[in-house]
């Protein structure tokens, strides 16, 4: 278990916001769902820390990229706080996505220059 934890990559600073926004493209979700989704999609490679998930959600809300509302879950008879992407949030997602691409391209060019040339 500890070994496995070590192998899990820590989220790169700043990418969490992007991941959350991307997750919300599928539709509104509450915190637990978002965390689970990211974890499942990456095959548990990215371990969601609740300690960073909730501050991030609230940060996004403060920025106006998402809005939150208490709604009843379709499968359970209880209310959850659902986050929904705003127009501003969509723009932000595009921006962060393109920045992330530039970043990975740049890193790739440094790391695998031969592959690039050939």
């Amino acid at each position, binding site marked *: 278990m500890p070994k496995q934890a070590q192998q899990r990559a820590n989220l790169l600073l700043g990418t969490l916001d992007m991941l959350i926004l991307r997750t919300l493209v599928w539709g509104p979700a*509450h*915190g*637990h769902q978002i965390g689970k989704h990211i974890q499942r999609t990456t095959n548990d490679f990215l371990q969601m*820390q*609740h*300690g*960073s998930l*909730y*501050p*991030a959600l*609230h*940060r996004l809300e*403060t920025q106006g990229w998402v809005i939150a509302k208490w709604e009843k879950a379709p499968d*359970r008879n*209880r*209310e*959850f*706080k659902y986050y929904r992407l705003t127009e501003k949030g969509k723009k932000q997602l595009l921006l962060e996505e393109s920045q992330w691409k530039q970043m990975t391209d740049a890193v790739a060019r440094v790391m695998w220059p031969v592959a690039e040339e050939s």
Partner: protein
Amino acid sequence: MRWWQIRKRDADLERELRSDLELEAEEQRENGLAPEEAHFAAQRAFGNTVLIREHTHEAWGLAPFERLWQDVRYGLRQLVRNPGFTAVAVMTLALGVAINTSIFSAVSAFLLRKPPVKDPDTLCAISSKNLLRGFDLVGVSALDFESWERQNKVFQNMAAAERGSSFTITGKTEPESVHGDLVTPGYFAVLGVTPGIGRTFLPDEDRAGNNHVVILSSALWQERYASDPNASGKDLEINGAAYRIVGVMPSIAETTTISRPELWVPLVFSTEDLAPSARSNHFIDLVLGRLKTGVTVKQAQTEMDSIARRLEQSYPTNKDWGVTVLTLQKFNSRSLNVRNAMMLLMIAVGLVLLIACTNVAGLLLSRGACRAHELAVRSALGASRTRIVRQMLTESLLIGIAGGGVGLLLSFLGVRLLRSGFDFNELGKQMGAGLRIDLPTLLFTLSIILLTTIVFGLVPAIRSSKVPPSGTLSQTGRTSSTGVASSRIRRVLVTGEVALAVILLTAACVDIREVTRELREPNGFNPQGLLSVNLDVSGPRYKQLDARIALFEQVTQKIRDIAEVEDAAPDSCIPMGCFYSTNFTVAGRDPQPSSAPLSSDFSVVGPEYFRTMQIPIMRGRGFSTTDNARGSVVAIVNQEFARRFFSNEDVIGKQIEVDDGNHKWAQVVGIVGNVNSSVGQVHSPPRVYESYLQVPVNGFTTMGLVVRSRVPRAALAPLLRQAVWSLDDSQPVGIRTMQDLMNENLGGDKLLVGLMSLFGCLALGLAGLGIYGIVSYSITQRTCEIGIRFALGAKKRDILRLVLREGGMLIGIGCAIGIVPSLLLPRAFSGLLNGFALQGLQAVFAAAVMVAVASWVATYIPARRAMKLDPMRALRTE
């Protein structure tokens, strides 16, 4: 997001976390875990929910507010938990703030407050400047005023006033004496004040015949006419003549000038005032000018300078006369002549505040060290250093706010007390009436609260944050005692307090010595049983010299006939309340054109005067009844006059001409002893006397008598009034004992002494308290060490000596440091305060001894406690 929504947001967050946590638990259960187990698994997955919440709060961007609120609550709890510490710290600061606020209210009232008129910055007071003697606020002659008014291009309008004349109002049961100003018709227009009722003076009401009109102050109107709106138009009998009331002025007209008149009448320039030679008669004591829009005071000064130079060339009387232009505010504060005293008082209260700060800093330092363990735990749990400094500063700020708040409340009392301290005479009362906590004072108080908080809070805060957690936590109390640096800071604090206390007490001692000297100093006459009786001879009834002489001859005779009266004599200028000096020339001496004219105090007295006052006749003779209008004019001078002006020759037999309106040579026939014109003068002024039987005393509108009697004033006053009223029932008879006059004279000095002594005692008390606190703290910290010393065989005596030696050294150094600047104080005081004698060094040493003794006591009390420590308990102390 607003900070006040924080509770709602937090509840929302908590609900969100709980619901998600429950969901997690449900999912775990669905995965087949036992309910109990599922709950823990969910908890594990979530981690520390409190931490999540804290991190989320950070995301809201409100963390600083929240932390501040936390710190404030925590700080308040800390303060409540240590009521002794809190009370001492808050009261110390409160005292410091209260005295600073009270004294500053005086600074604000006397030096900063602008006259309550429209555009006070463009209202100027223009004075003559005596270039030879360097007096720059001299009165103005009528002709100069007219020349200035005609020639200047910088003032919209100008007005002149002769202030503080006394008027006798009759027509009611007893004649009443009131103060009033004589003003040119445009006066109120220049001030920019419009009457509440009626009108101001008309342009032609400054001509004799038209001038029997009067404007009342609102105070007199309320008192005498019960605020009757129809008072305007009624007649009022002033100095025996009917004056038509034309208006009533709102109270701002009274408070604009220091004289606080109760009425205004037109200033009429007589033909003598306008004679070419009268350019040297500087009787107008206030010329006001309203600057034209856009003209600065400096430009006005330049313009007036060039006018003065032109006048100098045109008129020989104007040689060496210049002009001073000041804003009325500056002119008023200069005229009050309290600037230096205020400065000294502000320095004194500032030093007391510094001692108070030092005390609180010492307390905080000690407490910081006591809380070393707590702080170590906090920093071990992850508190950053800035966080701890912030926490400590917040606590200091709370103390500062509490102390400042209490201090501000106390200062309302302080201002009241200060106001009553100004009650010593008329001018003082007027000055005291202006004292209040106004906006500048409030701003000053707020800034000193902030400043003191930083001063006393920062050093201890930084100090306590330096505590290394590992050391403090692992090795409990035993070694956490005095670090070298913190003990050095405490030493500096104690030394500083002692030094400051020495300085302040020296100031108090210097003042006390000065006043006792003034009280002890003989004034050249015997004030015991002496009364002054003032009469008013300005009315038309006494226009003729003969009428005046007759009045005084008869009044003197009537009063001398009273059985209780031992002696009585007229005097135009009774010492201790009157200053009148005049120029004179000596026969056979050419007046030197380059030097100032000879000048001396001057008084017109009756033949029995020197006997009544018990002024010794040193040589020659006194006045006799034959020195009258038929005899040749004679003069008597005092020793100082003879010494200063006739050092190489015998003054007796010399001819002098005093500028008394007589234009006759007078022969000096005697020398009398010196008399001070105010209490305890260091150098008695030269004084020349002439007989009222020979001199018209034109310049004097009031004339008095000195009366000697063994009967107290209360018993004698009705008899004296009766005697005067049997001759003239319209006379307001002002009767004062010489002792009262002398007390009024000393009032300002006594107030200064009282304040300085108060501040000195506060300094002494605070310094003692501070030393006591710091020494007891040091003993608490060294309990263990003392226990070891006892265990190793130290005697009680040795321990006592140990503590006293440490304290004694600090006190010694502190006193030594304090003495050095204190040595300059007597010189500074005599330089800054009028009439202050330069005194010896006793005051400095008295102060140093007092501080040393008090500090020694403050050290001895905790030292005795150290001596009585039970060695076993001391060793166990943790």
